[in-house]
């Protein structure tokens, strides 16, 4: 394993040190990343979190118009309740706090425990579960939360910034999730610092279809194919679940080890696919946003926009990972 780290046990702590040093707009305390400016009275607070290794998610989305705090766990390990409790209490501006939780057993358990144990703060939660690679049924853990998390954090964050009450922020957050779907494809595995070797072996002529963001293998393997065909596999999966029409927000997201030039190539194919379906890419994002350490591959996330969501997406945001309008 070759990584730019000091030691596997220090990865998260060292990275947070770097984040704090790089971004005066952030404050890091006890493994929680806050806006340095602190909570704003009357504004709903937004707290998210999850395992580390998905950077810039979540800590990179702390700032004006998005999160108030992020709770990073160890690599691929959800945070512990103490972090979430501290964050929730610290960001409450009197209007309550929304927990944005990706649907994984570990994340839901730890956020639920924290919500139960947080005193004196009104807490609502939204569960992000956009990954169509996973079957959703009563008898499974349900769909994973992946790329749509960024959409939820952005749009709910914009609404909170505008002074909306907790119930409304939570409703819109759930609506964004409900209108969003994702599908991911890996060219390589990632290597966790703790394991020191790739989570799975993938022959040089194969790809994993339907991967998550933790190096979990996908639903099946397939021969490697041109970008056009891989984009089609991903978009077919999305379209099958959420028929594409109207105005869409589309993210082509790198898994951490894929260079931007390749993501643009995928985006060109995705955009052509959307057009062929008679829909329109009204807003887009291309880059490494919801990553899986050094994995090579991409995911595509689509959200069906309406006027309100478009306005929330366009609203100013000022975070290390996403910034416009200020």
């Amino acid at each position, binding site marked *: 394993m070759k990584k730019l780290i000091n030691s596997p046990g220090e990865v998260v702590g060292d990275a947070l040190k770097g984040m704090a040093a790089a971004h005066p707009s952030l404050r890091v305390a006890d493994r929680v990343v806050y806006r340095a400016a602190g909570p704003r009275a009357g504004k709903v607070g937004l707290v998210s979190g999850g*395992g580390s290794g998905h950077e810039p998610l979540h800590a990179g989305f702390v700032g004006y118009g998005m999160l108030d705090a992020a709770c990073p*766990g*160890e*690599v*691929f*390990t*959800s*945070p*512990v*309740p*103490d972090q979430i409790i501290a964050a929730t209490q610290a960001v409450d501006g009197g209007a309550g706090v929304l927990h944005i939780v990706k649907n*994984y*057993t*570990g994340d839901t*358990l*730890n956020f639920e*425990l924290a919500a139960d144990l947080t005193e004196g703060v009104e807490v609502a939660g939204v569960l992000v579960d956009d990954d169509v*690679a*996973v*079957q959703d049924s009563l*008898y*499974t*853990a349900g769909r*994973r939360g992946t790329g749509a998390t960024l959409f939820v954090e952005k749009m709910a964050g914009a609404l909170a910034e505008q002074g909306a009450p907790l119930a409304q922020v939570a409703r819109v957050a759930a609506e964004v999730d409900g209108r969003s779907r994702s599908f991911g494809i890996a060219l390589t595995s990632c290597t*966790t610092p*703790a*394991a020191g070797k790739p*989570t*799975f072996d993938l022959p040089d002529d194969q790809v994993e279809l339907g991967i*998550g963001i*933790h*190096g*979990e*293998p996908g*639903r*099946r393997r397939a021969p490697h194919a041109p970008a056009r065909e891989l984009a089609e596999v991903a978009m077919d999966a999305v379209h099958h679940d959420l028929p594409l029409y109207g105005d869409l927000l589309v993210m082509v997201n790198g898994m951490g080890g894929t260079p931007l030039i390749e993501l643009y190539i995928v985006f060109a194919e995705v955009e052509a696919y959307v057009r062929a379906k008679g829909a329109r890419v009204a807003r887009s994002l291309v880059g490494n946003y919801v990553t899986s350490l050094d994995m090579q591959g991409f995911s595509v996330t689509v959200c069906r926009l309406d006027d309100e969501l478009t306005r929330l997406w366009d609203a100013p945001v000022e975070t290390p990972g996403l910034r416009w309008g200020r």
Partner: protein
Amino acid sequence: MGPLMDAAFCAAWLEAAALAVAADRERLTDLDAAIGDADHGANLDRGFSEVRQALAAGGPGQPLAVAGVTLIRKVGGASGPLYGSLLRAMGKALGESFTLAGFAAAFQAGVDEVARLGKAVEGDKTMLDALGPAARAVAGAVRDGAEPRAAFERAAEAAREGALATVPLVARKGRASYLGERSAGHEDPGAASSALIVGALVTADGEA
């Protein structure tokens, strides 16, 4: 009614469990790599190291309750709150000293708590597939009037068998469920660690 057991036994059990987890850390992570996210060994090893420190610090409280809270507070992931709740529930049910029957009831209460939190049942290919049979084995041993040693051996055996029995299963809970049919053919890492932790009862009993 078996003979009386005490808090020192619980501490010895946790110690033995910590050693067993540390020794098999890599195997557990490898199992998790196959159908999960390659952190189970690291998670538990980190958690049980913290448990040892917490117990060494020697605060008040039933060791299992201390261990449970420590795992909940320090591990994260799915296994942190689940194992933490298992042990915390057991610690709550047990006092300074208790009988084997009391232990059996506490164990079952802990397992029920895991099932409740995880919304899982046996057969879902989780730690429950090792913990459930183990708890029933202790209860059975109590009914048979067995000594703790024999009860723990039966529990360890049941947990090991339960863990191995997860191999052909298709996971319905946890990360492994994302793999669908591909999860079959692999032992569940949480079931494997449960077998280690239950097995540590035997080690602890030998030492006590």
